[in-house]
């Protein structure tokens, strides 16, 4: 209760210390910190490379990912798969398809899984979070109880639950399954932010100005609540990719034979891992590097926009 005066003063001092008299915006000052963060740069480079790959990768693929071009060199009974050879950089997979082409095409699928699952989860979370945060009261209570129930189920179980609902497991079902698990996370985060915004002075000021409630929510509260949500999204892309892989591992992943996804490739390679480690190794490495990239990016962003870490 001790004077808002003190708090305001501290903020001012804080802004003085940090922003050299001239305040800078959240993201601008975050950028100042990020510029010198090697972790951020590593993450950024990985992600850029990955996104580029996802865009052009499928065009670079020397073969169609579904063609069993090397089936003649494949034998399950002798546990033989086609070795690397001219035109087939990494050899074939258990079905005699070109592993390298599948990896290239898989990059796009993997990016799709990560990004779409995140977007979907984000949208769901936004809706719930905005509902709870904008209305408060019983709406908040109801929404948050739902979120509590969702959160009390470990995320992978939720994903499994959703995945089994789909009778035809494919990329879409994986995306939806993973997305659903992210909804409560986003909803929580956003609701917290929205509630904080609700009590903030500038929202009060808008109310005092007679701005209509809808405009207050969408012009003031939502935009100002989004920063941590954006950061979280970066991290969620990484977990989505990993979760999709975990679903594949449990046999619940995409079964689409024509559009390979790295997690799916890793899942399929499980039982050959000791005789043909390459089958699992390449998709695994790709997943790890990309997940690491997003995590690095997300964590360094998180640190950069966190006012607490500004000291």
């Amino acid at each position, binding site marked *: 209760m001790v004077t808002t005066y003190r708090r305001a003063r501290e903020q001012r001092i804080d802004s003085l210390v940090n922003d050299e008299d001239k305040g800078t915006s959240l993201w601008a000052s975050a950028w100042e910190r990020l510029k010198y963060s090697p972790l951020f740069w590593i993450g950024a480079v990985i992600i850029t490379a990955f996104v580029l790959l996802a865009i052009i990768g499928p065009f670079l693929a020397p073969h169609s990912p579904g063609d069993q071009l090397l089936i003649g060199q494949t034998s399950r009974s*002798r546990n033989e798969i086609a070795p690397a050879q001219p035109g087939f950089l990494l050899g074939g997979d258990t*079905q005699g398809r070109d592993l390298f082409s599948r990896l290239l095409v898989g990059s796009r699928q993997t990016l799709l899984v990560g990004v779409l699952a995140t977007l979907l989860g984000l949208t769901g979370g936004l809706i719930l979070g905005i509902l709870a945060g904008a209305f408060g009261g019983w709406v908040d209570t109801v929404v948050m109880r739902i979120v509590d129930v969702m959160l009390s189920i470990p995320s992978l179980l939720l994903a499994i639950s959703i995945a089994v609902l789909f*009778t035809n*497991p494919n990329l879409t079902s994986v995306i939806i399954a993973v997305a659903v698990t992210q909804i409560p996370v986003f909803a929580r985060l956003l609701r917290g932010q929205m509630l904080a915004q609700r009590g903030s002075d500038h929202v009060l000021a808008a109310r005092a100005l007679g701005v209509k409630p809808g405009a207050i929510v969408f012009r003031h509260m939502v935009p100002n609540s989004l920063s941590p949500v954006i950061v979280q999204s970066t991290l969620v892309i990484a977990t989505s990719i990993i979760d999709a892989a975990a679903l594949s591992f449990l046999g619940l992943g995409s*079964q689409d034979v024509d559009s390979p996804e790295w997690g799916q490739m890793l899942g399929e390679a499980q039982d050959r891992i000791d005789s043909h480690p390459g089958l699992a190794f390449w998709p695994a490495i790709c997943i790890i590097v990309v997940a690491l990239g997003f995590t690095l990016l997300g964590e360094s962003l998180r640190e950069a926009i966190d006012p607490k870490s500004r000291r």
Partner: protein
Amino acid sequence: ASSDRGSDASSTAPGSGAPGSSASGSGGTSGSAGSGGGAAADTFIFGAAGAPSMFDPLYATDGETFRVARQINEGLIKFTPGTADPEPALATSWESSADGKTWTFTMRDGVKFHDGTTVDAAAACFNLDRMYNQTGAGATQAQYWSDVMGGFKDQKDDAGQPVPSLYAGCQADGNKAVITLNSSTSKFPGVLGLPSYSIQSPTALQQYDANNVQAQGDSFAYPSYATEHPTGAGPYKFQSYDQANNTVTLVRNDDYYGDKAKTATLIFKIIPSETARKQELQAGTIDGYDLPNPADWSGLKDAGFQVEVRPAFNVLYVGLTQGNNPALADLKVRQAIAHALNRQQFVTSQLPEGAKVADIFYPDTVDGYTDDVTKYDYDVDKAKSLLAEAGQSNLTLNFWWPTEVSRPYMPDPKSVFTAFKADLEAAGITVNETSKPWNGGYLDGVEAHQADVFLLGWTGDYNTPDNFIGTFFTRTDNRFNTGTQPWGAELSDQLKAADAIPDKDQRDAAYVEINKKIAADYIPAIPISNSPPAIVVAGNVQGLVASPLTDERFASVSKTG
């Protein structure tokens, strides 16, 4: 229902033959010997893929339960190791009347159940009557009875009519058990070798309320007989089921009538993951496991493990649902599909060593086998022209394949689908792919005729053609929906008639004819392959005889070193 197996295991005082400890002599030497794991010579540890349902085989249908039950129990007959042919077990001999309706079994003398009671004709009849007398939940669970014998004693169908049964009764006549049937069937006597037809101790069955199966919500609760006190006459006795450590422990039955078990303790260690089983074997912590991935065979062999390949006793087929897609009603289209599939390439690239392309719906080890049927070689052009003839050049098929499953006839459904999808597309057929979990829509959907084309197969229970094609096509509302075709009822009648022929040679001839017609005129499905499943044991294991019926008996198994 009693279900405190776990607490039972945890409350027993140390040392007093605790269920969790090995009861053999090595128990005294404690840790150092025990920690040797699979290395102890008088203990055989087998990696099981799943937990047994319980230990009363009457109510079971699954291999994991049967595997344990086969060690504990015997039936009137059993299968000669390594074959599907019957040989004497609790009965030393048997004969049937000319009409095939009366079967007389002569019981072996001096055999005792594990509880010390005597195995005699009365006990045999008691068991068969018990099976026939199942009611309520027990009746729904005793599937091998209803599959083979039909109805139960008091069973009524929806119209209130008694459900017909093959079984008429059993009389104990001195040391002879006389079983009467309502009609002749090819299934007899082979079916008596199935674990479900095991002869168990009447005393124990009564004492532990064996028939008291209760349906509860999603599931069944079993009486303590089935969970704690299975009492058979087999070479091993049930000792414990340690759920905390996922192991079932059996110990040698020293009163067994035949050759005593070679190892004092037989442990089934439940390891659901196939890879984990392999690695445990490699690490020496188990002595063997079932159904190694064909891809691992060569590697395992190279590493000194014995991969025992069983004779193939199964069939994989591509089912064509009649009456679903109008195009499939045309025989030409079905023939075209048969020509389109490159079965040979699939078999060589995706199936284990020893797998063969199948021309009919059962392997050559089954009676009434013939390869003198119409053959559909891989021929894309032929397929295309047949399709063109049928006016189906733009055919689109809804192709279903299962996930979350691996079967002996189909180790990796995805690879089957991948291969055949490509083949069909090469023949100009558009493939709409639908994948569903095995028990998560696939079986249900296929049964409900939702697919045009689907993958399925069958592993035989015993050696009769009826067990294969009889199961597939006798009903007309089967999964191929043959009833919608004019020949569906015809095929059904032929099969029924063949099954009832008492004379084996006549019967076999009848089946050969049926196979020819199926291949030439009907094509309700396209047989793909017979693929041999394997069982693998460590290099120091002797005496395991692989069985086409997966009926391995571990009593003969021993370990060196």
